[in-house]
């Protein structure tokens, strides 16, 4: 069985530190009023950005589980 430092620690670090960069970017574009919540298209962009983050997180999660248990 691979060690914790090879299986889950990189995952936690990737989405923890990477998540700080991501959320920081989202806060920045919100403060700069680039995405207008009143516009439907801008609301879609916002949700697509969040979707992308969790989409990659899900892919890595499934791949780690497959490596460990399949």
């Amino acid at each position, binding site marked *: 069985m691979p060690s914790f430092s090879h299986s889950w620690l990189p*995952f936690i670090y990737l989405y923890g530190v990477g998540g700080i960069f991501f959320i920081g970017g989202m806060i920045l574009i919100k403060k700069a009023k680039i995405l207008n919540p009143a516009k439907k298209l801008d609301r879609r962009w916002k949700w697509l950005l969040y979707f992308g983050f969790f989409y990659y997180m899900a892919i890595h999660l499934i791949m780690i589980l497959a*490596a460990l248990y399949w």
Partner: protein
Amino acid sequence: MESLHGLGTTTDWVVMVIYFVGIMLFGSYFAKYNRSTNDFFFGGRRFAWWLISVSIVATGVGSHSFIKYSAKGLEHGISSTMTYMNDWFFMPIFLFGWLPIVIYTRLKSIPEYFEKRFSPTVRFIATIFQLLYMIGYLGIGLLTLGKTITPLLPQSFAILGMTIPVTMMGVIIGIAVITGIYITFGGQTAVIFTDLIQGLILLLAGILVFILGINYLGGFDKFWHLLPPDWRLPLADFNKPPDFNFVGIFWQDGVAGSVGFLFMNMGLIMRFMSAKNLDEGRKAAIFNVLFLLPISAIVVSNAGWIGKAMLGLVPGPLNPGVNPDEVFVAVTHIIASKGVFGFVIAALTAALLSTVDSLINAIAAVYMNDVHAPLKEKFKKKLQSKDIESKKELNAARIASAVFTGIGILATIPFSSYPTVYEAHGYFHSIFTPPLVAAIFLGAFWNRFTTAGVVVTFLGGSSLMIIGARYPGVLITPIAHGIPMDPVHPYTYISALYNTIVCFGVGIIVTFLQNPLTIIATSIKKIPNHKTYMSGTVVISALLILMIWFNIGGLPLLLLASFVLSFFVALTSVYFLKFNPDAHLEGLTIWSIARAKEIFKGGKINERDGEIVKVNWKLRSDAEEIIYVSQKDMERMSAEVGDLVYISDARKYLGGLKSVHTRLGEPHNEEGVVYVGTEDKENAQFVAGRILTIEKEL
């Protein structure tokens, strides 16, 4: 490690030649749709997101990926994909911060941004760093081409009784000469359009290798269980071994590399700029990162995974001592029949060649745009006739291409000391990306960031980077996350974190010290002969740079020299360089993108939601770049006179190939009809009788 030679058969070479000729003919056919390269890059802005997405694959995947990721796939398994799957974190600020700035300010090069945002001096410094970055990239590209083609050639050639050995450097020089000829005859436009088809072929070739490999091994289940458990994980071990660890690669590739690629790679940015509008560019980027990058990750790495699984077979078809950088070629040779092997290698080398010649062209363009033209302007040479001047420019561009190709060949020497291209590329990103990344980031996202701050980011940051490289045990170990230090190549990846911290750090500190620096500069201006004193500080700064470069003195002295250098550089920047917030901030930071749109349009923007209308078109006899539609159609588009519109052939599969951006004129009363001028018709290549669509942009 054993090096391969003589793998290519006659059938393979025939397939490769046919492929190369076919690709060049394809590019030449599409070139007729562009009236100039400049039109394609900056004025054309016409293509649909899916066309852009495919062409980006060739730009990103086509460079060096097959070789370097297959090598890491063999050595470490599925975790070779991690560098392809860590780009999302910076997408918000790229898509909604940097991309609008680049598009709406019509940037032609990254150094140009530094002139607009700060001053011509900063542009000059940024140009040096940009050229170093691009030459390094070229060196990596040439090294990879050498590693791809060397295994196909015999160990030596016999000519006129002399035996000439085939060495990697010889192959690299040969490739550089062929590339130079390809650029002269093929031209940049042909190169750009071939990327569209190359992207698809690259994906197909990589998937073909994966399918053939799985089939060779006896199915996916067998392949999966032939891989050791550690090889199946998608992320590397957190901090070991030194040549492939998660945390180092996260900072080198996920942070410095991703930001460098998205924010500084003009080839990539130009692709997004060729989209019909900003939203279409965003769609292209999102589709690429969400769908094409995960597929690309499999495509570029799988030969290494198949190779590792093959090593578990008894008897094994793959030599256990295979050079990792040659595993892609070796595995493809085992699993593919004659001809198919030639096709896969042709697809790979053609894409590599395309990337390398695009890079040579881009370097020459940066030189001509950011060095040659400003120098010519500064020395105000007497201009001759337009024809003679244009011939001179062309010759200068050709000489620049040749010189930079030669420098690119020299750049392969330090990179070739690394065991694999992956590590060489990682080292390159760690060193060359942080100063530019810090300067762009702080410039685009922080209004307060000053000219002194950016100059110190480049010069002070670099001096601290050099000291870090000389004393990694003292300066980088504390932030190395427990990665063991390799004494030959210390902290290949995690040095990116140290370099990023020092570049951001000095830039931020100097910006916060702007007021005291201004007070000191103002006081100095009251002293007699103040210009002489300040010129003296420039000389001292140059001496300090030399002292750091040549490692004169121990660490404490070098650190002191670096701080003194940063102070002097900041002071001389405040003293000599003017900064006008009104001119240097408007539309150039994330906080003024609405203003950037107004500058782009040349008037007040119209962002009311409207419909896309379908119309028949009629040709006017004049060449004015303006179209006339009916009052009713204007109302449906929620458009007004003077608005920017995009008018295109309605056939969606053309992806905007026959389209143009123009402006709306006064309305008429013929509903469903648009009157188009001759210039717009020529630019768009509209076909008589075809329906067009019109949509309002701004």
